[in-house]
């Protein structure tokens, strides 16, 4: 589905979170490595509680997380320390990380903060052992060449990774994270993708950011006219970002049309809820049968609306269900989808009767313990009332393929207070202007085309490759750019497809090999088998000795002469046409130890003498 985004007044901005590939974490000296959860060597569990503020108020997002009080379990590793366990004060802010974020800032023409203050941002979903995330505003107001304004760049600590439900892994906690926030300057899904992609390129240009899935995450802020600002978190793949925007626009448009219809119908939400546990005593629905309590609420004038699709795979009912789940229930049933799931038509009829529902009304039921059910019905009522007001401001999480589910209300600004354990850091103008800016990958690709004669596609692949630094070094050492690029991209890819562990082959070995090929001591044909051997852990010298000992021109000539003598009749009969077939024979004999060009040259020379 596509929309006239200009007419809808689409405004979108993005927040990009990029993990930094620093040696140590942001506030402790642990390495920034991710681990397999099976390697954890300890675990502990804690409860988190939102601290009340002066006014006795609690942040609305924090309050909602608190509804279900449960302990969080944390996995510790031999690469994590007491700081991640929230058992030790933080170290001073990692200067390598600050340096890198200021470099990003300078690349986007931003103004650095003179005195950077580290804040504690309250987060009690369990992903931070302390209950807050340390974060600092580092620079303000920049812009991109395509015109989008950059509002701010922050340096913060990465949260712990959720293993499942209430279990978190501490390896990721504390990895430095740059958070780049754009102004809501994008007006089409495509513009959002372009800006995200450009910022990603810019960050990668420093060669000091983490790579791979999950190391860069986009949050997208989207609103349309009459809609509301919605933040969708955790878009990990650039290819989905346009779809996320499209589907959110679709959701807001649908919610607005539901609102209009509800208003036209004079819809209302009942204050009262009903205990209907007795109605389902003998039900065929397993969930309802085993529930301790089943409560119902009647939404007057909502019939057909709760079950209406608002984006692929999502209905208004799904939104209500997301809210209800905050109370720990599994979900809800609504009469737009009943009878189904083992609930009979007769049961639906008696349910409708129990709550005095007419044909225009929708009845929602929740089944669980009484406490959870009461909590859930309260939130469903709240969400139903929101439906009559339009689109609620929310933080949502992306689902597979680009739809989204409710996470929590948009947090207020009220979540931050100073991190008193870390001293502020002064950024002087001299320091800022002394930062060395890297060449942009886009400029680098242009240079590879212009100065090295790579074709555009190969150049693009090369600049985004992990071996790009190696590539430049190789070329600097005199290796032909095309040979280097083809080896580092195509050959490695081919080997990788064959199952070789090419990541295990060091840059030093590849450089050594390519220089030898360039200077003619190893034949080009031997590159692939040698790298394969290297990927299996072989030593480069030994491999070359075994597979491709250096062969002198004279040795090659000797092999050629021998071959010609052995095939005397064939040579006489074919004349110079024998070059092709003999090439194969000689190459096989030399097993890639000599360059094909040299063989061909000498073969023609020797044939010329005989014929």
């Amino acid at each position: 589905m596509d929309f006239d985004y200009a007419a809808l007044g689409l405004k979108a901005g993005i927040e990009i979170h990029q993990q930094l590939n620093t040696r140590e974490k942001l506030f402790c000296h642990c390495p920034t490595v991710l681990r397999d959860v099976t390697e954890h060597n300890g675990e502990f569990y804690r409860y988190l509680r939102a601290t009340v503020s002066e006014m006795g108020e609690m942040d609305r997002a924090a309050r909602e997380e608190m509804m279900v009080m449960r302990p969080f379990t944390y996995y510790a590793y031999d690469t994590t320390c007491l700081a991640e366990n929230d058992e030790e004060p933080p170290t001073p802010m990692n200067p390598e990380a600050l340096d890198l974020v200021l470099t990003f800032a300078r690349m986007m023409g931003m103004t650095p903060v003179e005195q950077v203050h580290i804040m504690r941002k309250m987060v009690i979903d369990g992903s931070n052992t302390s209950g807050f995330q340390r974060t600092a505003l580092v620079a303000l107001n920049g812009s991109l060449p395509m015109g989008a304004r950059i509002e701010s760049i922050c340096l913060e600590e990465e949260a712990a990774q959720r293993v499942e439900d209430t279990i978190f892994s501490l390896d990721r906690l504390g990895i430095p994270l740059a958070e780049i926030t754009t102004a809501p300057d994008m007006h089409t899904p495509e513009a959002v993708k372009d800006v995200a992609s450009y910022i990603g390129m810019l960050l990668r240009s420093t060669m000091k950011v983490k790579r791979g899935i999950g190391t860069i995450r986009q949050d997208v802020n989207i609103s349309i006219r009459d809609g509301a600002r919605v933040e969708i978190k955790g878009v990990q793949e650039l290819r989905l970002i346009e779809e996320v925007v499209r589907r959110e626009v679709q959701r807001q448009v649908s919610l607005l049309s539901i609102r209009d219809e509800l208003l036209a119908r004079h819809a209302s939400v009942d204050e009262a809820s009903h205990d209907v546990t007795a109605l389902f005593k003998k039900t065929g629905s397993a969930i309802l049968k085993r529930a301790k309590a089943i409560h119902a609420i009647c939404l007057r004038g909502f019939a057909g609306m709760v079950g209406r699709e608002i984006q692929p795979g999502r209905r208004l009912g799904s939104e209500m269900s997301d809210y209800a789940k905050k109370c720990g229930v599994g979900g809800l049933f609504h009469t737009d989808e009943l009878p189904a799931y083992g609930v009979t038509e007769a049961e639906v009829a008696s349910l409708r009767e129990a709550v005095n529902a007419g044909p225009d009304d929708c009845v929602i039921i929740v089944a669980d313990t009484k406490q959870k059910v009461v909590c859930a019905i309260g939130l469903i009522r709240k969400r139903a009332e929101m439906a009559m007001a339009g689109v609620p401001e929310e933080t949502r999480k992306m689902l597979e393929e680009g739809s989204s589910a409710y996470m929590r209300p948009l947090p207020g600004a009220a979540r931050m207070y100073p991190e008193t354990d870390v001293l502020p850091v002064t950024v002087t103008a001299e320091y800022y202007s002394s930062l060395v800016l890297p060449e942009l990958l886009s400029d680098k690709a242009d240079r590879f085309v212009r100065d090295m004669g790579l074709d555009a596609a190969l150049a693009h692949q090369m600049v985004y490759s992990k071996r790009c630094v190696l590539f430049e070094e190789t070329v600097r050492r005199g290796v032909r750019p095309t040979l280097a690029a083809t080896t580092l991209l195509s050959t490695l890819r081919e080997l990788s497809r064959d199952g070789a562990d090419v990541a295990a082959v060091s840059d030093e070995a590849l450089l050594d090999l390519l220089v030898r090929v360039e200077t003619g001591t190893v034949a080009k044909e031997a590159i692939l088998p040698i790298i394969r051997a290297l990927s299996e852990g072989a030593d480069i010298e030994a491999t070359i000795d075994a597979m491709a000992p250096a062969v002198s021109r004279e040795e090659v000539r000797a092999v050629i002469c021998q071959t010609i003598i052995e095939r005397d009749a064939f040579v006489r009969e074919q004349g110079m046409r024998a070059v092709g077939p003999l090439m194969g024979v000689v190459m096989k004999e030399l097993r890639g130890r000599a360059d094909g060009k040299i063989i061909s040259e000498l073969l023609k020379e020797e044939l010329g003498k005989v014929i």
Partner: protein
Amino acid sequence: MMASGTEVICRYAGADLEARYITDRDGMAVIKLKSGYNIGVDPACLTVVAPPEVVKAGEVTVIKQNPSLPELSIISTGGTIASCVDHRTGAVTSQFTAEDIMRAIPGLGDIARFRSAVLANILSENMTPAIWQTLAQSVYTEIKNGAEGIIVTHGTDTMSHSAAAVSFMLDTPVPVVFVGSQRSADRPSSDNVMNTLASAAAATSDLGEVVVVMHATTNDDICAIHRGTRVRKMHTSRRDAFQSFGVAPIGTVAYPSLDVSLSSNAVRRRPDTEPALLATLEDKVGLVTFYPGMQADVLHAFDGYRGLVVNGTGLGHVSSSLVGDLKSLVDAGTTVVMTSQCLNGRVCDRVYETGRDLLSAGVVEGDAMLPEVAYVKLMWVLGQTNDTEEAVRLMTTPLRGEFTRSSENGF
């Protein structure tokens, strides 16, 4: 300087930022932006827009005390057991009144009724023997006035010193529970809530002695109840920093159930007994740690003191070269008590020659007492008697479980 909370506009990076002025720091004005972030800027870029808004005392939850529950008294000495964050300015404030503490620690009201007294508001490293005396007096008064248990909130650095001091000064028939937090009370992960709830549970339990209640592990699972004369802070920052020496913790409080379990050697509540207070302390008492290479002048700095606790090596030693200097202290009337840096185990100066020389010099074996406990006890003992022999007798007699006649074998 403008008032904290003043609304300002900050001309910065080509834009006008709306902010609140917070404070000055190293020549910079710290302002809080709308986003919640603080930044430090040149004060010259600020323009005042409005004075700090007068915050209406918002709807404060009324705390109801349940009259059917036992009455406890919370005495604050300065350790922050409860705090509030003012998100407007980012300021963190400690809470001291019973109602404020109960508001900040939900669940407290289900355990007991509370009254509260603020005795001091100091960092625990600034604690003094004079405040220990005021504290003991105040605990005594609260018990006399009917409190069925006392909670003393205390900074963790010297909490064990205070607990030991109150142990000797006060003979209590009800639980006197010292509690603190290792991780600041403003953080959602703070140990304050669990420690305080556990301390309240311990204070309503069958205990009848001075104890310290703190996390037993890094998990939020169990608090240990430590005897006030056997406990020590053994880690700078971990939640489970407090450990008992020479005796297992005398009880536990499970969390979140708050079930209290007491060991057989925990002193029980004595409802028909009146508290007794003997709060005199001798303050000319010192504590010195021996180290290889120590020179005699360090010991002579204590010339004229009435008591000196030596934190010696191993079984209770100083270098033989210092034995004569300790003897001259003893001869001049200083009671010298030997303890061990090992913390675990008993002092025995009869095994090696240096030890025997120390005994001949008149040094008293401090048995299994922790060095700082021996120090506090010696202050109290010398506050009670001027008779050296009586002082030695008291130092070598367990009074509040500071050592036991038999060592636990650890099985």
